[in-house]
């Protein structure tokens, strides 16, 4: 199994990622996304955003995988998120990883905003199509931490 810490691949292009994956010759992957926020050190909205973004990122990976397992860390700890996937399609894997890296780590906020828009559309579509979310455990914690609006 090949472990990929997403934050260590921010300098890679999509083709660079593909090249890297091809050289590794693996089909089982552990994908790690580091956790930046924990409650109550960070405000609720940060916790909500982080869980939603990871839920979306892992859902994208689940969609291209034949096997998908995932870890739902406590919102009170800074223990990393991870999922374990199997895929033999390295082209699709590189494309998906690059999408996630761009959305989460590229300094230009345009990429982050686009990633968030796509995330909202993705979850909206699941809801409208009455489909089960593969990362519901993360999504639900994100929802629980959305602050109640001030009245």
């Amino acid at each position: 199994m090949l472990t990929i810490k997403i934050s260590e691949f921010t300098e890679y292009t999509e083709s660079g990622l593909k090249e890297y994956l091809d050289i590794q010759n693996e089909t089982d992957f552990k994908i790690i996304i580091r956790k930046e926020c924990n409650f109550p050190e960070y405000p609720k909205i940060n916790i909500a955003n982080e869980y939603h973004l990871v839920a979306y990122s892992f859902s994208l990976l689940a969609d291209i995988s034949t096997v998908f397992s995932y870890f739902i860390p406590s919102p009170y700890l800074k223990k990393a998120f991870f999922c374990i996937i199997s895929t033999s399609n390295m082209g699709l894997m590189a494309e998906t990883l690059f999408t996630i890296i761009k959305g989460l780590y590229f300094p230009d906020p345009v990429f982050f905003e686009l990633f968030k828009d796509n995330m909202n559309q993705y979850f909206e579509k699941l809801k409208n199509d009455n489909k089960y979310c593969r990362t519901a455990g993360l999504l639900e914690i994100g929802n629980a931490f959305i602050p109640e609006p001030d009245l």
Partner: protein
Amino acid sequence: MTTINLKDLWDTEKNEIYQILLNANDVEFNIITECYRSEKDKGTSDWSFFVGLEYYDTLYIGHELFSIAETFAVYIPDTNMLESIRFEITIRDMVLFTEYLYYLLKGNSLDKINHPEKQTDFLILKQQFHDDILNNKAVTYNSFTAVHGILNLYNEWCDKSSL
């Protein structure tokens, strides 16, 4: 982090469980639940049956552990894998932890002869929990939220099984 495999403790008495926890001298525990499926069930209807039963039981175990834990995390393996759901919890009160583990172990075991009363309570409370889930409108981080990943898979399983 100390690993506790529930499958290894079904017949363990309460004082022994307490001793195991004390000897661990730890506050972080990795609780491995039982995977009811086995290799021989692959491709049979038993596989699907055991998957559903496992989600049903594990949901309740997770809910109970959440209620006593300082922190609570879940690992959910792919349904097609022969791997158990596991919970990572932080807990400092070993007396309380012993009580809960003993309750969960006796309740979920088939030891009806030695502990019929424990299992009856367990089954009633487990059913109560599942009834509560149906009516839950959680907006705060609670046990329903914490075990939602398993609940989601259980609901999906029920849909597929037309339950």
